[in-house]
């Protein structure tokens, strides 16, 4: 914890500046971090008031549990270039490992918001993937019977 970090959670990106010995500055606010005895537990103090959080750094994100809420944070060294955007905002992705049971569209098809483009099955349930907006299918990356992994695009929309 030496250099400034750029941390993004939801809509907000803040510069977080560690100042040594457990102090950090989040924007203009100074907070104090103490580590608990169990892995991932921290106590954050601000103006005499303290709250507990649990935090874990995974390969692609940092997860934080704070007062019953869960946050997934992007943590980067300040000034580092943003990492990968694995798929366009118009892509439909598999939310979890699943089997493709039907592909209802081909490249070039015009689709309307709400149309079911792909039908997945996982945990004995059907999961329809619907078009998020009126669009044209620019690519299809799967076919029926495929076992697909999460966070990969299955269909690209223009």
């Amino acid at each position: 914890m030496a250099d400034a970090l750029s941390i993004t959670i939801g809509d907000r990106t803040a510069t977080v500046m560690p100042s040594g010995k457990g102090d950090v500055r989040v924007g203009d606010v100074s907070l104090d971090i103490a580590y608990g005895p169990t892995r991932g537990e921290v106590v954050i103090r601000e103006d005499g008031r303290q709250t507990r959080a649990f935090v874990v750094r995974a390969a692609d994100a940092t997860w934080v549990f704070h007062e019953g809420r869960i946050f997934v944070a992007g943590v980067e060294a300040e000034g580092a270039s943003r990492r990968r955007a694995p798929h366009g905002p118009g892509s439909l992705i598999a939310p979890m490992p699943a089997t493709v049971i039907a592909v209802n569209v081909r490249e070039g098809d015009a689709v309307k918001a709400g149309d079911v483009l792909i039908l997945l099955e996982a945990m004995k349930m059907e999961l329809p993937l619907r078009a998020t907006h009126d669009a044209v299918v620019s690519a299809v990356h799967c076919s029926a019977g495929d076992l697909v992994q999460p966070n990969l695009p299955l269909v690209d929309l223009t």
Partner: protein
Amino acid sequence: MDPRPIRRVLVANRGEIAVRVIRACREMGIETVAVYSDADAGAKHVRLADRAVRIGPPPAVDSYLRIAAIIDAARAAGADAVHPGYGFLSENASFARACADAGLIFIGPPADAIGKMGSKIGARGLMERAGVPVVPGRTPADQTDAGIAAAAREVGFPVLVKASAGGGGKGMRAAHDPASLAEAIPAARREALAAFGDGTVYLERLVERPRHVEIQVFADAHGNVVHLFERECSIQRRHQKVIEESPSPALTPALRARMGHAAVEAARSAGYQNAGTIEFLLDGRGDDASFYFLEMNTRLQVEHPVTEAVTGLDLVRAQLQVAMGQPLPWQQSNLHQRGHAIECRVYAEDPSAGFLPQAGPLLLYREPSGPGIRVDSGVEEGKDVGVYYDPMLAKLVAWGETREAAIERSIQALERFPVLGVRTNIEFLGRTLSHAAFRAGDTHTGFIDEHLEELLERAAAADAVFAAAAAAAGERSPAGAGPAAVIPDPWMTLTNWGR
């Protein structure tokens, strides 16, 4: 019935319910045999048992649903009884019969009773004859799309389309008009086929804004039948229960007595034994409310701890006692509800994405504890949540002197239940319990849909959350320092469970 001692129980299940059964057996001096698929090698229920037998690859059809494999495992491990838990083979009459044929005590109702209640048509007829009110509905004899549509017009819209076999809402769909019915029929049929191997669908009039209130019953082989009061399970998503409580805020003593009486009659009429649950739809609240028989679950319920908390009884222990031929240890007049209990089912799912089940590693998983708190779970930090089975991680049960106290205790416990690495419904559960309508007891099975937008609202991250995220970016400590260095960590790489 003669007493038949049980010395070694095979638990034909996995996860939290297998753990629950193993603990009860151990407290009674009964040995346990766990079974596991390859996906569950080294799982909590496997490590807690006295013996463990592999029964197949991860898919349930190849393991936990394989009757022959489980009977073989019971024989190989020298078990004399089988506890089916819930789900999987628990309501499969053939399995109960296979156990009996193999000389194994099935810890549950007679195969007959499962059969009678497993058929929706048969169960309805039985209930009507026993004087228990039922919701209008039928299984169309003509199972073509057209035949089902015609039957739906007779039952009347809105209508529910669901699997004739099995319970739990799998394959269930509501249709408010013929157009939506046309979409619902093939989907319900497909899911019924996939889940139960039987695509027959059943139609039922949809009661609007009903409560789901069920009565726990218990019967022994000596003709004793009691009920253990109600559980309200109205908070559902995807037709599956999320939050259950007892007492129900909708019941009055008179209504409770009527429903309890109906449930006991229902169980009696089926020749029932052991633990079972009569599910009712409740229309209205208070003395004048109407209730309709929905179905009977011929097994222990997921939500049985709610009943245990308010009645002060151990249902699994009683299941074992009844299966051994002992009389029920309780009499109706000695049973009482005390205080209030709430169960929250913690799922690996993303509420903001239609409660989509999630899979992934439990990078951090810490259960809350404290007075009045009980957590039943089968998962552990460092393990993966897989795609093969139900995504329920844990059941958090909180008991309090009053409903208000139980709600507050649940909320506080959820705030001390960090689960990271997989999205869960923990935040959603907290928002549901905090919602004014829930606090007011104004619940119905459409509660989540009705209030969904509010329940999905997300607070902005406080500065403390940014600080916590920064804390995890700290440098790795030098090896060899700190208490963790005292022990070498084969736990990090070795497991020896795969064989």
